[in-house]
């Protein structure tokens, strides 16, 4: 159970409206820890070999349907504390967090920008999906975050990653206009989807904080979109369920000409983006964006929008 007093009345009002009759179920999932998940690094090891080893060591593995190298794990206390992890044969990464790279239509040889890249789970996943070919420009804003990113890029052996430390809002000045085939903006957010890992996000939640971070998200999203080539694909994602941080931001991009596409995510249960929320009415294509609730796939909450620049 989530301790009393953590959920603010305004949060309850909004999420009752958002979840409808599923509100209690939503809370039930929010109160439990998510299942640990790993992402096997096929660039360093034959996945079959590693899976055999892990099962031999008592791990139980269940395939994540939407990413071929993702596995829910049980029977192990600390998946991040093994020799195989130290050698970079896998990465501990929440299953929902594997969705944005899948939505990005990656292929070897592309030039990709990951604008808010730390700690590098999606950067290294993309690097592996591209077979270590092409280039990924992985950016984040602070030394601590870039250190974490660099350590994970090293451990996973992602030899096609270039690391930058800059304010993502200045992406055009840092990287240039219309330079990338693909852009990922996994934006900093209020992290309501992450409450299953820590209740801190609930304690910090307020309408004011959501508004403040949505302004940052919009600045980042506009800058990210500017760096995208014509015909290129951008994915905007967050680990929150706040419409102001999700549909509202995507709607602003549509207003500036971005086209929304429905991503193909195998085996994922998801809800369409909202048509309206509070006083806002969103572009009808915003319904092609992806809302993932914790109760849908027993993951953290997530939001993913796939956009194309015409």
């Amino acid at each position, binding site marked *: 159970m989530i301790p009393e007093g953590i959920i603010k009345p305004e949060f309850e009002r909004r999420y009752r409206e958002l979840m409808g009759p599923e509100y209690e179920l939503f809370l039930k999932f929010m109160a439990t820890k998510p299942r640990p998940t790993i992402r096997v690094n096929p660039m360093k*090891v034959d996945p079959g070999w590693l899976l055999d080893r892990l099962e031999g060591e008592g791990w139980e593995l269940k395939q994540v349907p939407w990413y071929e190298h993702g596995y829910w794990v049980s029977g192990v206390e600390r998946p991040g*504390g093994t020799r195989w992890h*130290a050698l*970079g044969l896998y990465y501990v990464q929440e299953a929902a967090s594997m969705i944005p790279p899948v939505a990005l239509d990656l292929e070897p040889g592309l030039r990709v920008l990951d604008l808010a890249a730390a700690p590098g789970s999606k950067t290294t996943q993309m690097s592996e999906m591209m077979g270590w070919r*092409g280039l990924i420009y992985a950016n984040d804003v602070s030394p601590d975050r870039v250190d974490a990113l660099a350590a994970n890029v090293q*451990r996973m052996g992602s030899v096609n990653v*270039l*690391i*930058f430390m800059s304010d993502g809002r200045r992406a055009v000045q840092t990287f240039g206009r219309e330079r990338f085939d693909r852009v990922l903006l996994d934006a900093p957010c209020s992290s309501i989807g992450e409450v299953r890992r820590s209740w801190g996000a609930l304690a910090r939640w307020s309408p004011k904080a959501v508004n403040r971070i949505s302004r940052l998200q919009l600045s980042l999203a506009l800058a990210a979109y500017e760096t995208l080539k014509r015909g290129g694909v951008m994915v905007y994602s967050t680990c929150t369920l706040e419409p102001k941080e999700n549909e509202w931001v995507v709607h602003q991009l549509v207003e500036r000409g971005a086209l929304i596409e429905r991503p193909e995510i195998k085996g994922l249960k998801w809800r369409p983006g909202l048509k309206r929320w509070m006083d806002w009415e969103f572009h009808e294509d915003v319904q092609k964006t992806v809302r993932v609730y914790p109760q849908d796939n027993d993951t953290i909450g997530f939001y993913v929008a796939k956009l194309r620049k015409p």
Partner: protein
Amino acid sequence: MSFLRERFGYVPDLHFFASGKRKVRAVVKEGADERADLKGVYVGKKAPYGFIISVEGSFLVGRGAKKGIIELNDEEFDRWMSGQDLELREDLPKGVYIVKYQEVFAGSGYFNGRVLKNLLPRVRIQ
């Protein structure tokens, strides 16, 4: 990277570049002329007794290496990953060797004629 060719008989098709006085990194060739705060991965560093290969370097080089590899058995690998040096009975020349266990590579060690000195960094030791 003539040292890699000489020691391991293989140089991966990557762009190698100096990072500081002794360290070497590698990035895909498309990234050779790009400006960034950090590029690619750390491959190894020059030491008085040879070129130490990092864990990632051992994966990159080891896969194509024709020589300079020591293969460990289960028990030796357990000890290696816990940071221990290994006494080898093999009659090998002195020098730096890439360490391999079945499908995977685990950095490098310096063989002094008797013991394979463990050169794994502390953060990789379990």
